[in-house]
Each structure stands twice: as structure tokens, then as C-alpha cells.
């Protein structure tokens, strides 16, 4: 056994089953006697339901039941709850309209579930759904926030006049206005952040089950089974926790989209109770496009006040955020506390004011997608900085350096609530420029030009916030939950260890990294550590995995639980070694009496705890099994510098990212192999956002990118090799010094790519480009911008 502790590139424990085809995803699970659910969804963006005729469907072969919104209303089942409440500028709470499990009265987006058909086979359910007749009266629909705010726009909810969910602000407006009044120059940028579909490769799925005693089990594709148990049990179906088990087994990617409590989960569980048969539903990809929460979708204006030397004096931001047709679980938090609080970025801008209007539209609900708010803030800020460089003539890199929060300024209090604990932006910038051979770029540009290609380079120096969150802070900001994490460390009698964590791994490799943390602290080999997650019946509690919180919050809980194991182990060792507990040291898997060669191995202590023949039984319980809840003291603040180099084909407008370098400060690295993989994946999603991806709607709210045929996912030949480096400063307030790495790739990369494209198009007079920079968009610019060449 080589070194397997913190910092080792240990190969993943989970790979064996995945590579052999022995994963256990929800759709792989079949329960005896199960029926299949199929949802008849709205094909209208906005319409009143006049009549639903399910008689023919109910009589179709194999059909067991047909349910509509009326059945839920009759059962007194309310809607899906929202987990975060935002208050508007005037102190009023956000509009929080009901979100029924199945549509009642109206449909509000294409994909809104209207009828559920349950049948003996999947095909029978689907065939029967074809026989359902629904009469609609179409209502005016909107897809964009700008249209939804126009006077006379169709109202998505009567409870939200003007389609406004909330109108929120942060920062000191008067101070910002004063700074603008005295500024040497103001630079303004209008920009959008394109709407994305998360598209985890595993479509969502759920199986509900109810036994004779009324105990329910829900198998679901979730990033946080305890949160689903709480939301669905307490707020929707009124099933007490002890009678509701939620299992999230192997989950095929989440990226945020599997955080939320969805209608289908409630339906299969509720119907399982009605029918006393298991009810299974698996989304088809077309359903994913119109029912998984989407991401991003902002329209913003940003203005920076500058002094004569280009120092940032004040930032003013106004953003319209699309909520979609209903409030998804954490949607209200995303464009507020996960976005506007990040607008200081890595810069010492002294005053900032941001206002955010959240708007209902006839589109799929929008919620957190990899990065959640921070990519939107980063894109705005890093595009604005390049626009400032463009307008003032100050070099883009020099401008950033001039405004960096210096490495000796930590802890640093921003004007938008956050206090950064650590960071060193100059170091990550310098390392990234070196790794990307920034100095050699002019020669590469020249070589590309000789081949008829336009080459550009762009950087982004970003910062984000992870490890959500100190519960009291989150609560004060509107969270309706605590955001601590839980770990139970069970040392087995023979010295192996089972960790039960409230976080959930759906690609992140926790079964390996958490085991490495155990190996580091307890000296137990990784092969002797089993990490269990995703089952409310086995794990004490937990808030799950999102916002790159697993190692920062869940890992901290793990360390705290192991601290208790070691403390108890020392008392057992003191008894066995006939020494004072204060003299016992624990190191490298051994309990020793300080200054002597007397010691007991971890395994011997474990066995003694479970076979307590010679044991301080009067003062110490047997067993070696400890649980810790960890509430973080602050967010963590990963950051760094991404450098993108692009080449544009003049003939076709196709943009290729030819080099990509990411140097990130993610705090302590547990497993560098996994860290690199996380950054690769995040960067590919960021390149996808920058170049390819757009959740498309027509003006009235009809979805026009409803499959992989018309929503462009990055494929192997769309992304380059990605150079990943780390230059870490340690988090100062959690025991591992970790910050989190899950989202940095998707946060830092989009503006780097767009900055590179704008750089490449420098001679075409382009100051800004909204994403995605499709070849059509670039081709149009090239055509319009070169009339002289065309005439020749």
C-alpha cells in the first residue's frame, strides 16, 4: 500500500462497478408488482384547461389508474414547496404562487404535467396517454423576462402582478451614486447569460412504494435524499419522516438539476400509497428538456465608475432573472445571494449596488445549475473588465492587477456581504499566464493568420463561494433549512471503517476521497473504508451535495466525527496501556504512550471497544461509533485564472478552443486526479455555454430545443485538452483547509472563452458578444464586418 492519504491520486473505488456495468441507478431497480407511470404534459406554454377526458385512457389495456390535478385537490395535497424566501426592496415577501403536482386550472409551461397514467407496462401507459383528450383555451405566453415585464403581458400567476416574483437589492445605492457622480469615466455593458439545460446523462427517475403498514420508500435520482424526504414528507404528502425512506442510489450526474423536489417524485409516492403497488417513472430525454430545472437566463446591465488610472470606484448592476413558470426549490436564492454577493469578484471595488428583479415566464422553472449564480456574476464582471480595457486602452491584465484585492488583505470584507478568508489572485494569474505561454501568443496569432485563421486569447480572473453555508447566516438570508452536514463514522470490530455521509456522490468520487480523509486521519487503508451515502434509512441526516459543499462541509463533519473516535480510542488505549489519557498520542494508526515504545494499533483498540473484556466499562460505553454535525463558519472562496485561446475559421465562423488553461485555488487538494477531472468537466460545460448551448424558446413560450438534435451539447471534438493547475491558499476556517472544486471550471471558463473571441475579432470592431458564440453568429459578424474584402 502506497500513500493513500490527503493529496494522493488514489484510483477510484467506485470505478469497478461502473466499468463492469454493475452500477445501480434508479431505472435499474425493479420492484415486484410495479406499475409504470407516464405523464401527459402540456404542449401549450400557457392555457386554461377547459376539459380533461380520461375515460378512454382509463379503459385502455393494462391501465391501472389515471390521475389529474383534481385527485390531488380532492386529497388535500398542496403544491411543491420553495426552500428559500427572498424579500423585496420594500420589505414585502416574494410572490410565491402554488406549484401543484399536476396542473390545476391552468398549464403554465410546455412540459407542465397534466395527467398521470399508470399501467402494467411502460408502453401501455404511453399508449393510453395518447387517448387522453384535453381542451385548452390558449392564453398569451411569454418566454423572455423582457416580454413578461411589458405592460399587458399575460399573467403567469394571478398572485404575481406584473409577473414579478421579487424586486430585490443589495449594497449602498447612495454611496454608489456618489462615486459615479465623481468618476473620471463610466463604462457600461449590457449582457445576457444564456439559458441552459443541465442534461445530466442519466434522465430523472423515481419509484414509489408503500408497504402494508403505510411505510413509504422513494427511490429517486437525487443529490440530497434527506432534503427530498423533508420537503415531500412534511410539506407535500404529510408522511412523517420515520415512515418515509428516500434512497438515491447511483445517480448519473446532477449538476444541480437533481437537487430539487419534483412533481414526479410526489406523484409516484402518493400513487403507491393509493394503489399499494410500486409505481415507477423514468423520464425520456424529451421530458428532461421540458421538466428538469434549467439554469442561468439573466438579462443585465453593468456599469463601472473609474478614476483616471482605471481603478474601480463603484459598480452598479441591474439584473432581470427568469424564474420560469414556478418557483423551483432553491430558485429565489440563485440570482440573489449566490449571484449579487459575488459581484466584488477578485477586485477591491469599494462600493457596489445591485438590484435583481425575478420574473415569472411560461418556461420550465430555472434553478441552480453548476455554479448557480456565480457563473452569471463572473461572466458579467469579467466581460465588464475586458470592456473597460477596450474602452480605456488599459491592458486587460494590467487592469486586473491594478484592481486585485492584494494577498495581504485577507480576511477581506466585500461591500456585498461576503468576507473572503484567503486567496492570492496574483499568484494564480501569473501561474496561468505562464502555463498558457501567454508571452508566446503573438507568434501563435501570426502563425494562425498565415493560415487564414483569426486567433485570440482571453482570460478570466474569477472568484466564487462554496461550502454553503453557516445555518444562521443562510436563515437570515431566507433559507428555510439549516445547511450543516452530518457524518457518522462506524469503526467495525475488526478495524475497518464505514462512513455514513449526508452528502451524495453522483460522479464526484466521494467513496474514494472521503476514504482518503479517513486514511489520513485514522491510518486505515482506503480499501478498508466503505463510504455509504444516499439512503435516509442508513444515514443519520444530511443536506446533500450541491454548491461544491461536500468536502468543505461534509468532509469537516467527517473530521469532527473522527476526532471523537480518536478521543474515545485514547481513553481505551490509556486503560490498556495503564497510562494517563493525557499521555496518549495517536499517530500513523497507533495509540502510544508519549515517550515510550508502548502502543496499541487502531485495530486492537477497535476490537477492544467491541469485545470489552478488559475495558473501563464503568466510565466508558463499549463500541466505536461516532456522529458529528458540522455547521460551517463561513463560505469558502475558491478562485483562480482561466486562459482560453481560440481560433476562428474566417470562411465558416466556426470557433475552436485550441488551448485552455485553468489554474485554480481550491484550498487543500484531497485527490489531484479527481480535482483535475472535476475541472475538465466544468470547463467543458463552460465551453458548451460559451459556444454551443442555448435552451431555445419562441416568443410565446414554445420550447424549440427539446432534444439533443437541437440543443448542442459539447462533444469530444468540441473541446480541447485542458491544462489544469492548482495554486492553493488554505481555507482558514474548516479543519481540512479545503474550498471545493466542483464548479470552478464552469464558473471561470465562459468569460475566458468570450474574451478570447472578442480579442480574435478585434479588427472587426466587436466590443461584446453574448453567449453562445455560435458559428452562425460569428459568421454574420465576419460577413458584416468585412464589406471591403467582399467587394474585392
Amino acid at each position, binding site marked *: 500500500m502506497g500513500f493513500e492519504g490527503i493529496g494522493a491520486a488514489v484510483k477510484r473505488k467506485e470505478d469497478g462497478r461502473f466499468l463492469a456495468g*454493475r452500477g445501480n441507478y434508479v431505472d435499474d431497480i425493479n420492484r415486484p408488482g410495479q406499475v409504470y407511470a407516464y405523464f401527459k404534459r402540456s404542449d401549450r406554454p400557457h392555457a386554461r384547461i377547459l376539459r380533461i377526458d380520461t375515460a378512454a385512457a382509463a379503459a385502455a389495456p393494462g391501465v391501472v389508474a389515471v390521475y389529474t390535478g383534481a385527485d390531488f385537490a380532492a386529497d388535500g395535497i398542496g403544491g411543491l414547496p420553495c426552500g428559500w424566501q427572498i424579500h423585496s426592496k420594500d420589505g414585502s415577501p416574494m410572490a410565491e404562487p402554488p406549484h401543484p403536482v399536476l396542473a390545476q386550472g391552468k398549464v403554465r409551461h410546455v412540459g407542465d404535467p397534466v395527467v398521470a397514467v399508470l399501467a402494467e407496462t411502460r408502453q401501455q401507459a404511453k399508449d393510453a396517454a395518447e387517448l387522453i383528450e384535453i381542451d385548452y383555451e390558449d392564453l398569451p405566453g411569454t418566454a423572455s423576462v423582457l416580454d413578461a415585464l411589458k405592460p399587458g403581458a399575460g399573467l403567469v400567476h394571478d398572485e404575481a402582478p406584473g409577473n414579478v416574483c421579487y424586486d430585490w437589492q443589495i449594497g449602498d445605492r447612495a454611496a454608489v451614486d456618489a462615486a459615479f457622480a465623481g468618476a473620471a469615466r463610466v463604462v457600461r455593458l449590457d449582457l445576457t447569460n444564456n439559458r441552459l439545460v443541465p442534461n*445530466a*446523462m442519466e434522465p430523472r427517475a423515481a419509484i414509489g412504494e408503500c408497504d402494508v403498514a403505510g411505510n413509504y420508500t422513494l427511490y429517486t435520482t437525487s443529490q440530497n435524499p434527506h432534503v427530498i424526504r423533508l420537503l415531500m414528507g412534511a410539506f407535500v404528502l404529510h408522511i412523517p419522516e420515520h415512515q418515509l425512506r428516500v434512497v438515491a442510489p447511483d445517480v448519473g450526474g446532477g449538476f444541480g438539476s437533481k437537487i430539487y423536489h419534483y412533481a414526479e417524485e410526489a406523484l409516484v409516492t402518493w400513487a403507491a400509497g393509493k394503489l399499494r403497488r410500486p409505481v415507477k417513472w423514468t423520464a*425520456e430525454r*424529451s421530458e428532461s428538456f421540458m421538466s428538469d430545472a434549467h439554469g442561468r437566463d439573466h438579462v443585465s446591465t453593468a456599469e463601472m465608475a473609474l478614476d483616471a488610472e482605471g481603478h474601480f470606484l463603484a459598480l452598479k448592476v441591474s439584473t432581470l432573472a427568469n424564474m420560469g413558470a414556478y418557483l423551483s426549490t432553491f430558485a429565489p436564492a440563485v440570482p440573489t445571494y449566490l449571484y449579487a454577493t459575488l459581484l466584488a469578484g477578485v477586485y477591491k471595488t469599494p462600493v457596489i449596488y445591485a438590484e435583481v428583479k425575478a420574473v415569472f415566464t411560461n418556461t420550465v422553472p430555472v434553478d441552480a445549475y453548476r455554479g448557480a449564480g456565480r457563473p452569471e456574476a463572473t461572466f458579467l464582471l469579467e466581460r465588464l473588465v475586458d470592456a473597460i480595457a477596450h474602452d480605456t486602452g488599459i491592458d486587460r491584465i494590467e487592469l486586473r492587477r491594478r484592481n486585485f484585492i492584494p494577498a495581504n488583505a485577507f480576511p477581506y470584507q466585500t461591500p456585498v456581504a461576503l468576507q473572503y478568508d484567503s486567496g492570492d489572485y496574483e499568484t494564480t494569474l501569473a501561474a496561468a499566464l505562464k502555463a498558457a505561454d501567454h508571452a508566446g501568443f503573438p507568434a501563435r496569432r501570426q502563425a494562425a493568420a498565415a493560415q487564414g485563421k483569426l486567433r485570440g486569447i482571453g482570460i478570466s480572473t474569477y472568484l466564487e463561494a462554496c461550502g454553503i453555508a453557516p445555518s444562521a447566516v443562510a436563515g437570515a438570508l431566507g433559507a428555510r433549512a439549516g445547511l450543516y452536514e452530518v457524518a457518522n463514522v462506524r469503526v467495525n470490530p475488526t478495524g475497518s471503517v464505514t462512513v455514513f455521509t449526508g452528502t451524495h456522490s453522483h460522479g464526484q468520487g466521494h467513496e474514494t476521497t472521503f476514504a482518503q480523509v479517513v486514511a489520513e486521519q485514522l491510518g486505515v487503508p482506503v480499501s478498508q473504508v466503505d463510504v455509504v451515502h444516499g439512503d435516509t434509512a442508513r444515514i443519520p441526516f444530511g443536506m446533500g451535495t450541491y454548491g461544491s459543499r461536500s468536502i468543505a462541509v461534509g468532509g469537516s463533519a467527517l473530521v469532527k466525527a473522527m476526532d471523537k473516535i480518536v478521543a474515545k480510542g485514547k481513553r481505551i488505549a490509556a486503560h490498556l496501556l495503564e497510562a494517563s489519557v493525557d499521555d496518549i498520542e495517536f499517530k500513523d494508526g497507533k495509540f502510544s504512550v508519549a515517550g515510550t515504545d508502548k502502543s496499541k494499533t487502531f485495530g486492537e483498540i477497535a476490537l477492544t471497544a467491541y469485545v470489552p473484556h478488559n475495558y473501563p466499562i464503568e466510565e466508558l460505553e463499549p463500541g466505536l461509533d461516532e456522529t458529528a454535525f458540522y455547521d460551517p463558519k463561513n463560505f469558502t472562496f475558491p478562485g483562480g485564472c482561466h486562459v482560453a485561446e481560440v481560433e476562428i475559421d474566417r470562411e465558416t465562423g466556426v470557433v475552436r478552443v485550441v488551448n485552455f488553461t485553468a489554474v485554480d485555488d481550491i484550498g487543500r487538494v484531497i485527490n489531484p486526479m*479527481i480535482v483535475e477531472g472535476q475541472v475538465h*468537466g466544468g470547463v467543458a460545460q463552460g465551453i458548451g455555454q460559451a459556444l454551443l448551448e442555448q435552451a431555445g424558446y419562441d416568443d410565446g413560450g414554445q420550447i424549440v430545443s427539446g432534444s439533443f438534435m437541437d440543443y448542442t451539447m459539447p462533444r*469530444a471534438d468540441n*473541446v480541447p*485538452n485542458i491544462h489544469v493547475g492548482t495554486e492553493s491558499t488554505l481555507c482558514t476556517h474548516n479543519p481540512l483547509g479545503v474550498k471545493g472544486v466542483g464548479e470552478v471550471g464552469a464558473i471561470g471558463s465562459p468569460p475566458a472563452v468570450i474574451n478570447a473571441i472578442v480579442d480574435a475579432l478585434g479588427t472587426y470592431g466587436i466590443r461584446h458578444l453574448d453567449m453562445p458564440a455560435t458559428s452562425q453568429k460569428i459568421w454574420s459578424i465576419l460577413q458584416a464586418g468585412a464589406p471591403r474584402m467582399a467587394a474585392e
Partner: protein
Amino acid sequence: MPQVTLTVNGKRHTVAVEGRTLLVEVLREKLGLTGTHIGCDTSQCGACVVHVNGDSVKSCTMLALQAEGAEVTTIEGLAKPDGTLHPMQEMFREHHALQCGYCTPGMVMSAIDLVAKHPEGLTEREIREGLDGNLCRCTGYHNIVKAVAAAWPLMHQKAMPQAAE
């Protein structure tokens, strides 16, 4: 209901299917081989790739009845009976070419076919273009490309020809 007889991972099966039943549905639902995944409904993602008579095939794009008499290999059929992994599986593990594992079976099956059919060697670009039919949302493809390149010499039992790079 019509019947189809096919050999999957060396074992012969005869199953009753509807005319519209897809090969992937037979594998997953009739034969319990859930290693082959379904990631889309438009033949775009490649999560369902298996080998049919030695060629990689999207099993969501083939009717079960079309597989009459066919030899099918799924991800479950790659490892030797003693558990020894196929070199491609081994290299995926070695190079961290999987995260959530959902696209992995299809990706591995496509990659094996790609390498097997290119005895002359593969450039990085050819690997990337060769995997164009398989979507992965986790890895950014970087490590998958490395794993496929690393599996080539193991599968062909010789060094990758220089000319290919």
C-alpha cells in the same frame, strides 16, 4: 407476440417481444442486463452502445427483431470470467475516464470498436471525432481521450505507430 433468438455475452436467449420493442429494452428489461443505459430518445447520446456481430451499435436504434441470430456483447460481457477487465475498462480506470458512470458502458463499447477498427493507429483528433456519437457530461472528454489512446497499444499488443500521431 413474435419471438427473437439472440446470443448475448455468449448466452443464447429466446424472448417474446412486440414488433416495436427495441434491442436496448430487451437487454435491460427482459435479460436484466442493466449495464447498458438509455440517455436519450433520439439516438444522440450513445449511452446504449453495444456490439452486434462485432460492430458498435446504438441499441436504442435497433429493433429487437432485427437482432435475430445476432451475437451481442454488452458491457457485462467484456471482462473475463475471472474478473480481469478488458484493457479499455482498465485504462478508463487508470486515467479517471469516468465520473458518474452513466455514459461509461456506451463510451467503453464505442471506444473498443474505434480502436479495434483502426489497426493503423489513431491521432487525438481521430479519437475525438470517433467518439462524436457518445455524450459525456462529467469528464470533459479529456481523460476519456487519454484512456482510449492508452488502450490502443494494449489491444493491438504493439506500440502506437508513429505515423498516427
